[in-house]
């Protein structure tokens, strides 16, 4: 019963919350969409936290996404041991970057007086969720080798079963405790995502790359 709640109900709850709240927030409260950068109050230590964290987390997210979208190709890639090593080492390196980054950011926040006075409960929640996710993820990577191989065999079919609205939790309940914690942590993170400053990832300024540099907005309709 608990397994059903955690692996078949929680995921849908998380996705619905994620979609509903982020769209609702974007439409009705766009002012709150901000990365809430604190570089203005502290810049030097931020470099050692923010840069490795973001590089790491983006690499890891991309890795998980590729595994989810192209499990067969990943398996074929992994069929040569050297290539498996390359993939695993890259992923681990990204995880180390990510861990160093988030720990750096947490230390920075609590050792800088200006930031400590300026930290909200949501900020702390975000740190806890991210740290939990990174630590369990690394633990799984080191303890249950080789993650990139079995991920495509167990979790990817499970995730696809969720996507097809026919949840099949058989494979996931049989995983080790840490792996299950990592999965549950992911869904909690997705559920909490749109309530936090993490929403800035949804408005990453990609269109800037092809936008004309200058922007002029006319208040009134122009006669053309």
């Amino acid at each position, binding site marked *: 019963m608990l397994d059903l709640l955690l692996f078949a109900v929680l995921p849908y709850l998380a996705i619905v919350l994620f979609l509903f709240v982020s769209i609702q927030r974007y439409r009705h*409260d766009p002012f709150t969409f901000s990365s809430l950068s604190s*570089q203005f109050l502290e*810049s030097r230590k931020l470099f050692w936290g923010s840069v490795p964290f973001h590089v790491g987390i983006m690499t890891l997210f991309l890795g998980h996404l590729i595994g989810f979208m192209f499990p067969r190709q990943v398996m074929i890639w992994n069929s040569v041991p050297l290539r498996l090593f390359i993939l695993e080492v890259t992923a681990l390196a990204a995880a180390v970057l990510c861990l160093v980054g988030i720990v750096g950011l947490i230390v920075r926040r609590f050792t800088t007086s200006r930031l400590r006075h300026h930290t909200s409960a949501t900020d702390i929640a975000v740190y806890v969720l991210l740290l939990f996710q990174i630590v369990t993820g690394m633990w799984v990577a080191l303890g249950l080798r080789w993650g990139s191989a079995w991920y495509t065999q167990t979790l990817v079919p499970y995730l696809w079963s969720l996507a097809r609205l026919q949840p099949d939790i058989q494979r996931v309940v049989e995983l080790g405790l840490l792996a299950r914690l990592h999965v549950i942590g992911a869904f909690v993170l997705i559920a909490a995502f749109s309530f936090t400053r993490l929403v*800035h990832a949804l408005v990453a300024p990609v269109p*800037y790359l092809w936008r004309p540099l200058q922007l002029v907005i006319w208040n*009134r309709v122009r006669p053309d």
Partner: protein
Amino acid sequence: MNVRSQVSMVFHLDKCIGCHTCSVACKNIWTDRKGAEYMWWNNVETKPGTGYPTAWEDQDKYKGGWERKGDGIEVRAVGKLRGALTVFHNPNLPTIDDYYEPFTYTYEDLIDSPEGSDQPVAKPISMITGNPMEIEAGPNWDDDLGGSAVYAANDPNLASMSEEDRESIFEIQKLVFFYLPRMCNHCLNPTCVAACPSGALYKRGEDGIVLINQERCRAWRFCVTACPYKKTYFNWGTGKSEKCILCYPRLESGQAPACFHSCVGRIRYLGMMLYDADMVEEIASIEDPKELVAAQRRMLLDPFDPEVIAGAAKNGIGPDVIKSAQASPVKKFVSDWGLALPLHAEHRTLPMLFYVPPLLPVLAKVTDNGYDTSMDAFLGALDQSRLPIEYMASLFGAGNEGVVRYALRKQQAIRMHRRMITVGDIDASEVEYALAEADCTPEQADAIYRLTTLASHEDRFVIPPMHREEAIELLGDETPLEAKGAGVGFRRGPERGA
């Protein structure tokens, strides 16, 4: 020709008394809020001096403005690709310490302290942490030189000057300074707009005011780096950038912006200018920065030219706006008289706030009767000036001494002309010679004199009709979608996101 209209400004620096009334008027209306305490959308600094934020002109540190690349220009430090590399940590972003840590005092202690043998004291506390703090910087820390060589010697404009000239500025007997009020220039080629990855910054089509859509700003902070004048600010409370809005709610109801309205020395002028938007890129990309001042003047259009009027009408600029542009005092100072110059034009943003360079700190010597208005002074003053022309050229000429000399000579000639009329101790032939040398006629001299000294509120601020009465259409279906994105409509209070 693509005619556009721009609300533009002139500050006459000879009249600025450094009273900071403009700054206080602005602060009381717009930035008296949490996260914005340190912001002075309008500030007045002493020159030579480091200004606010400290040494903002040092572009080796802040990397603001445009830089020339090949035949074109690029945003110097941020922009598209370099921005993508620095989005997680921007090495050129000023921090609160480059401005100052906002502070208040524990005034309650004066009332609530228990009875004791000592007087209670109101201690300074930080407005960020609430902790007691030592005040080591303030919004105007080097006002009136605040320790002269200690602060003023760090002025970045002095770097290009000779050792001798630099020393002469700080000779105590010749010590010289003037005031430089600064605010957003509402540039024609704003780097802040070009650098904003979210598209939150934009220029209003109708009046050229540069604004930040608070609902689209995502705190990527590139605008703060991009503005070479450091006139976009980051609100650390709301996580949004903010800047001068040229008091557009006041302008729209026919009132001058608060800093203009409150100016005690009446140094400020405001009016509509017409310009050719198709020329912006070409002019901003000119190779030699020394030509920028003259080139920018070239792209400003004559509102009396029938071709310009037709072009304006085609772009939806109404006859009332054209009439306003024709009466604009800015047009007179900038286009007709060549007296007003843009600040640091070398950053290629085409700023639309122009300064009449101050003559008083330049004049060579003071006689018993006041400043020397004799022929000798006219001929020699600029070369023996107390404040080297080089310094003025660094500020107002993008390094070109010619345009600064022109503006200063004309002011000198006008002084001689007016002295001849009011005091009568100067020979008419000398005045005639001086006016001719300064490219000025007696009529023009009188017109400049009148607009400088006697101008009424209505002469100084020719505010174009902004047709707020049509604003109701902004809420209707005919509003262009992108204008709705500019924050038109009903608003909620600005609460910090989670």
